[in-house]
Each structure stands twice: as C-alpha cells, then as structure tokens.
C-alpha cells in the first residue's frame, strides 16, 4: 500500500527494536527513510537499511548521538541532501536503564536518561525543523510512564512525561504551519529493552533468577488485554497512522498502545 508515498521520514534509534520496526513498516507504505543511530550500532543499522531496501524503498543511514546536537545536525543534513526534503520526524530513541528507587538513583543515571530521552528528542526536532515541510508530522515516542509513574523509574518517568510537555508546546508553535505533533505511549514492548535479566529481576524481586515467563506473568497482570506486552509492529502501526495524511487533523494528542495498562484499575 502507499499511505506514505513520496514522503521522507527520519527515524532515530533506527538500528534495533521499535526503531527498526518503524522503518520497515513505513517503508512498506512507500516512505523513504533516513535511519539514525549510534556509530556503535552500525551493523544493526545497516541491517535495518537492508530491510527497508528489501521493501523497495531507499534508505540513508547516518550515525549520530542524539545527546550531541551537532551530530544530529550533520545526520539530518546528510539525509536532506540525499532526498531533497523531509516530511516526517519520528523521535524514537530512548533508554530504560539503571532502574532503582528514586532516592538511590545515581546522579549520572538520572542525567543520562534525561539527556537521551528528553534532550535527545528536543535536539532531534530542533535539528530537523528547518527542513520539515509545512504540513509535516512529528511523532515522539513516549511511554505509558509518560502518563503514569512507576516504581524504580523516577528518571525514566520524568523524561517521558517531559516529552509530552515538549510535544504540546511544539503542537501549538507549529500548528500555524500545518505541522502536527503527537506522542505515542507504548506499554511494555517486546524488545531487548524489556526482555533482559535486569528487568526480569526488578519485576520479580521475590525470585532468585526469574525467567522470562516469571516476568511476563507480572506484566500481563498490569494489562486489560490478556497479553504481557505489545509487539514493535503495534507501535509502528500507530506511528504510521500519525505520520500519514489520514490523521491530518490529529495534533497535540497522546496515543497509548498499551493493551489497556494506563486505564486498568486493579
């Protein structure tokens, strides 16, 4: 299908997980991709590009650290010079690390999470804005922790709430140019960010070496729908809707993709 025909999309955090899924799904709808990630993730990023090209679309890869504004500027410039335009920004990169009670959280851990998850989004939008067409779309990946808090996630929840404030401000500022700005709030997504021993241990402090199954039961209990997590494709489909012209009058909204987590009452 061609819901994004002739549109150029920049995706940060494109090497793996959700970012790769966004790239492939958007390419299936005929978008051209500027795929950005850290130099360290080079091999994975090239695989994302390979998957995009397999869908018959062009993909330019660029290395940047969203914490370094100048590196984002360079990445965006490379993409725009390749494709000649920019229609959609997907600010996807994020980390979920150093989980601990807020009063034990290290200064460096707090700062790193805010630098990547909040300042990184601002840098991404700031670097890309000069090139974004009127009528474009900005999609920022937040989290259910951007709507409600959670234990051991003070830094993460603060960063994910903060991007909602950023998005609401951008929506007001850019509305006159027809540019839409929305946030997507996934619950637990089946990516390496969630599926690792650290997270399992936090979910099941009662067990010595909790398995994925032990942890997934805890996650499923948080959702209305009987699933432990959503898949990256589910988030990508929401991104697609917000990126495409079919949502031309949707702006300033918070779209949750969370199997009902944020509305579930125990």
């Amino acid at each position, binding site marked *: 299908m061609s819901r994004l025909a002739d549109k150029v999309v920049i995706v940060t955090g494109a090497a793996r997980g959700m970012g790769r899924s966004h790239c492939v799904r958007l390419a299936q709808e005929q978008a051209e991709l500027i795929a950005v990630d850290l130099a360290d993730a080079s091999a994975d990023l090239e695989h994302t590009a390979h998957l995009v090209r397999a869908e018959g679309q062009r993909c330019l890869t660029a290395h940047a650290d969203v914490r370094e504004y100048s590196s984002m500027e360079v990445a965006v410039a490379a993409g725009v010079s390749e494709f000649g335009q920019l229609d959609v920004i997907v600010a996807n990169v994020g980390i979920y690390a150093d989980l601990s009670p807020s009063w034990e959280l290290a200064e460096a851990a707090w700062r790193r999470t805010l630098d990547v998850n909040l300042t990184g989004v601002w840098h991404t939008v700031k670097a890309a804005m000069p090139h974004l067409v009127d009528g474009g779309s900005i999609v920022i990946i937040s989290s259910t922790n951007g709507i409600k808090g959670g234990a051991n996630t003070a830094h993460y929840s603060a960063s994910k709430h903060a991007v909602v404030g950023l998005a609401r401000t951008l929506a*007001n500022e850019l509305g006159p140019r027809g540019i839409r700005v929305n946030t997507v709030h996934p619950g637990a997504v089946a990516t390496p960010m969630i599926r690792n021993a650290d997270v399992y241990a936090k979910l099941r402090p009662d067990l010595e070496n909790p398995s994925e199954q032990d942890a997934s039961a805890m996650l499923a209990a948080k959702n209305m729908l009987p699933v432990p997590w959503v898949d990256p494709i*589910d988030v990508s489909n929401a991104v697609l809707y917000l990126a495409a012209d079919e949502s031309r009058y949707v702006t300033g909204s918070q*779209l*949750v993709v969370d199997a*009902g987590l944020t509305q579930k009452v125990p």
Partner: protein
Amino acid sequence: MGRVYRKVALVTGAARGIGRAQAVRLAQEGADIVAIDICAPVRTAESPSATTADLAETERLIEAAGGRVAAYIVDVRAAAALSAAVDAGAARFGGIDIVCATAGIASSGAACDLSEDVWQTMLDVNLTGVWQTSKAAAPHLLARGSGSMILTSSVAGMRGLAGAGHYVSAGHGVVGLMRSLAKEFAVHNVRVNSVHSSETVVEPVDIANATLFLASDEARYITAVTLPVDAGNSQQ
C-alpha cells in the same frame, strides 16, 4: 486486501455525516455494514434530521465501495427494536466485529437554562443510545471472541464548552462508559475506544480514518483510549 477485510461493522447514525463516512470508509477497506439510523426528526435537536433518502444514499455509497449493506430504520433509544435490528444484521452477515456508536444530536443552551426535555433527550440519544448500542452488539462480539467498539464522542467529551452543558455531560459520560466497557470486555479480546472530533474544523472522513485505524487489527493492543481528531483544539 482491505484493512478490515471480511469484517462486519455496525454503524448507528449511518444516514449522514460521520456515520455515513465511517460506513463508506470501512466498506472501502473490505467490511460489510449493518447501517442504522432513525431517519426522522428528533424532538429538541437543532441539527437537521436525517431522511430515508439519506440512508438510501449511504447504502448506495457502501455498495459502490464494494461492500454489502443491511440497513434498518431504528431509534437508538428503542432498546428492543435496536437489538432486533442488530441481531438481524448479524444473522445476515454472520456476526459483528466492529461497532461504531455514532448516532447523536446537537442542541444548545446555557446549562442552567436548559429545559428538562432538552437535557433528557440529549442524554437519551448521545449517552444512553451509545450504551444501548454496545449492549445490543456485545453478545455478537463476545461470541466472536474479538472485536472493536468505537464510541463517537467529541471535544465536548474532553473539555467543557459554554452553552452546551448537556452535550458536554453526555460526551464525558461516553468516556466513562468506554473505559468501563474496555475493562469488562478486555478478557474477551474486545477493544473499546472513543474518538473526539471537533465538528467545526474536521471533516467526517478524518473521523472515519481514525475509526478505521481503531477498528483494524493494526490497533490490536489499543483499548480504553480517547483519540482526539480535533486539529489540536483540546490542547490549545
């Protein structure tokens, strides 16, 4: 293949406006439609009433889009008649997968100056009518073990508006109903969400596109969501 290929969608208020746009958009993506409308004036409503000719035009547009349609002239306030029509539509197409509870009216007046009649009719159509619709359709979705309900609210379901206290109350009430239904039906894999339009700025097709997304399997893990389609009105 369409995004709701071979699904059956119930749409109330299908004769015109948002309901017609939803029915046609879903039909374009492969759905068959059970179309319901009162096709008559509603006392106290300031919006002009739909007619049988309007519903016939919706039927024509659905068929032109490649869908099948079963249309019934029913008032969503008439629970027994509504259930009978929904059951008949489900029998015709072999079940129901999607529910668009869209029938609604508009009227205005300062909250404390509204007559009992204006207040009550608004609640009966815009809130209780949505409840009756979901109630009539629920057995079919639960029997299927999957489905998606889209309740049409408006920006008045998210914020207050001067001069429409009854409309705002009903719109907010729909959100409470939606959240409760989402919770009750989640174990049956039935999702329930609301869409919030700002009628003054968006066109029916925009709400229909949001409906299509929520109705399709692309949104399989999206439930209990209030999705604004309002050109940013609710955040301004």
